[in-house]
């Protein structure tokens, strides 16, 4: 729908996905509201290369990379540093802590898991009564969260305090084509954004927001977008792949996304109706460059785009995600190839982005 004559025909590519960096990011504890461990990694990575690095009032990292052209499009990219997890809320005897969930965690995913507490990653366990002491009736119900404790062992009470955050204790690993870790949502996005800050497309002003508090309502992205006041925005995130068979011989019609089918382009989620101009921009670039992609099934869930697109006088926005199995559980799985293709698509499309895409009215 738009002429691409003014866009470069040759674009460079990002050939490698920084798996080592992802490992470091995934293993960091950065539950919503206390993202400092992740933020420190981000700062260490972006400070040497960015023209401007700022930590905003809520703790998001706002990085600007200048364009090499006059009057560039100002493009905000957002990836959230925080992850779902736990907060200690009640200290008891013997290194036991009552806790609450932070963000959307299914209580059924919590029982029997090892955790890391606080910035020092104090190891703990969320235990439950073993099968020997439960009856069939009890086992048919969800174990209420208020009967569970995080157990840090004798002396553990001195190592942590009420208000400390905790996450599942899952070490990142790469197994063949698969990346596994606890916080791929959204450290995949954070690592992607770091890579773009290091290799900025020369034709745009890159406004990278490493946001806080996405998992509890996109609170960081909202103020970050107000500060950046961008021409358009892309949220880079991870989205569930519910792609296993339905097991009852029916067709799985609610897969959301599928592992290995490429980065997921959003048309609609609970927070955003993606700008159709940007959907076409990503789809056309993917098809021209031969990069696999998939359309995420319209439905629930949300990203930072939900907050960003409503700031100031409105910001044309879209989301692009790496599919992950086991989102918001102790172990998420992504395919390295999907991540590489997300990097390739994003980098290719951004280099071919020009004002024409937005000068036409949204339709």
């Amino acid at each position, binding site marked *: 729908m738009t002429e691409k004559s003014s866009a470069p025909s040759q674009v460079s590519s990002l050939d490698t996905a920084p798996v080592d960096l992802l490992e470091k990011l995934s293993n960091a504890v950065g539950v919503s509201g206390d993202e400092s461990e992740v933020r420190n990694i981000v700062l260490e990575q972006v400070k040497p290369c960015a023209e401007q690095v700022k930590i905003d009032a809520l703790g998001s990292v706002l990085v600007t990379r200048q364009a090499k052209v006059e009057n560039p499009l100002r493009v905000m990219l957002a990836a959230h540093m925080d992850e779902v997890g736990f907060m200690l809320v009640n200290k008891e005897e013997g290194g036991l802590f009552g806790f609450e969930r932070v963000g959307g965690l299914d209580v059924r995913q919590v029982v029997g898991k090892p955790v890391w507490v606080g910035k020092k990653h104090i190891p703990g366990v969320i235990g439950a009564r073993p099968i020997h002491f439960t009856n069939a009736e009890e086992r048919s119900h969800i174990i209420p969260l208020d009967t569970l404790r995080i157990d840090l062992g004798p002396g553990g009470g001195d190592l942590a305090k009420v208000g400390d955050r905790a996450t599942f204790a899952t070490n990142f690993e790469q197994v063949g084509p698969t990346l596994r870790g606890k916080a791929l949502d959204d450290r995949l996005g954070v690592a992607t954004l770091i890579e773009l800050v290091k290799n900025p497309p020369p034709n745009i002003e890159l406004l990278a927001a490493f946001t806080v508090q996405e998992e509890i309502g996109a609170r960081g992205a909202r103020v970050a977008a107000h500060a950046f006041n961008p021409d358009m925005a892309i949220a880079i995130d991870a989205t569930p792949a519910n792609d296993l068979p339905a097991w009852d011989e029916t067709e799985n*019609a609610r897969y959301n996304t599928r592992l290995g089918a490429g980065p997921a382009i959003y048309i609609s989620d609970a927070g955003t109706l993606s700008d*159709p101009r940007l959907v076409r921009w990503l789809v056309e670039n993917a098809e021209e460059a031969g990069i696999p992609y998939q*359309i995420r099934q*319209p439905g629930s869930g949300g990203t930072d785009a939900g907050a960003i697109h409503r700031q*100031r*006088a409105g910001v044309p926005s879209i989301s692009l995600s790496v599919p992950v199995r086991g989102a918001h559980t102790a172990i998420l799985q992504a395919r390295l190839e999907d991540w590489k293709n997300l990097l390739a698509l994003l980098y290719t499309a951004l280099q071919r982005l020009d004002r024409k895409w937005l000068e036409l009215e949204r339709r």
Partner: protein
Amino acid sequence: MKSLIQKLVETVGPSGYESAVRDVVRAEVESLADEVRVDPLGSLVARKGSKGQDGLRIMLSAHMDEIGVIATHIDENGFVRFTNIGGVRPHTLNGGRVRFTNGTRGVIFMERQDAPDRLPGLDQFYIDIGASNRQDCPVRVGDVAAFDRPFLDLGDRLVSKAMDDRISVAVQIETLRHLKNTPHELYFVFSVQEEVGLRGAQPAAYGIDPEIGISVDVTATGDIPKSPFGKMDVSLGKGPAIKIRDGRMLSDPRLVTLLIETASRAGLPYQLEVLEGGTTDAAAIQLVRAGVPSICVSIPTRYIHSPSEMVDYRDVQNAVHLLVELLSKPIKLD
């Protein structure tokens, strides 16, 4: 005005995909406004007048979008699964028809119900567009559709899908047409994405920075058998409703008084509206920047969010008269 209403309601424009409606609106307002622009999210903003000594910057907002559906999956037999855009009510769906933005039409039906005393969920419905397999189906995941139902003229009563809120779009267009002189700088906003959470009006208001906000939208009535809205004291045919409050907004009392006085002086019928659930663009406008005194002028409507929404044509015309009266004169908010 009826032909304008028919043209507007029969246009397909679910939330986020309002461009066809916008084209209709633009054709009407281009010659009536001093300036027409489209904002980053797609709302059309028509300005009339400049702020004079006794004038204020006033934003009016009627939303162009309607509820609809979006395809989530095409199964191997060519049936389209879908989810909602906005407040779609499952019990209004069965046997209904839809029209996609690409023109494809289809019929909605539901699977066998194992628990017939419970309302089915949206995932139990499908759209049959006449395809026999996935390959033949012209619908793709992410395609959007509106409910498909022709305009029905019953004389005083008009029936259609998308009366919510095209009837108010028509009211704003006619107000603009009949407004000869105004001391105010008026921004007639034809907003987007109201049905999914007032997402268009909020940024539009930020861009305009108005001193008064007025939404024009439909409201429920209590004048039907066992109304879901109970004893709500709003009826069809008794005049446009001046909103006192709804689920997310308390109208500015000064504006309530002003509208009552304006209607009384002009001899126009009006009703006072207290709506317990639901809200309008005004709820978003009032909270933008440092706050905006806001109100809503409502068109009483039966069967909202069904494919057959009913309004009274006299209420519609009186809403135009009320707004023209209001906007023709200086406004003082003490």
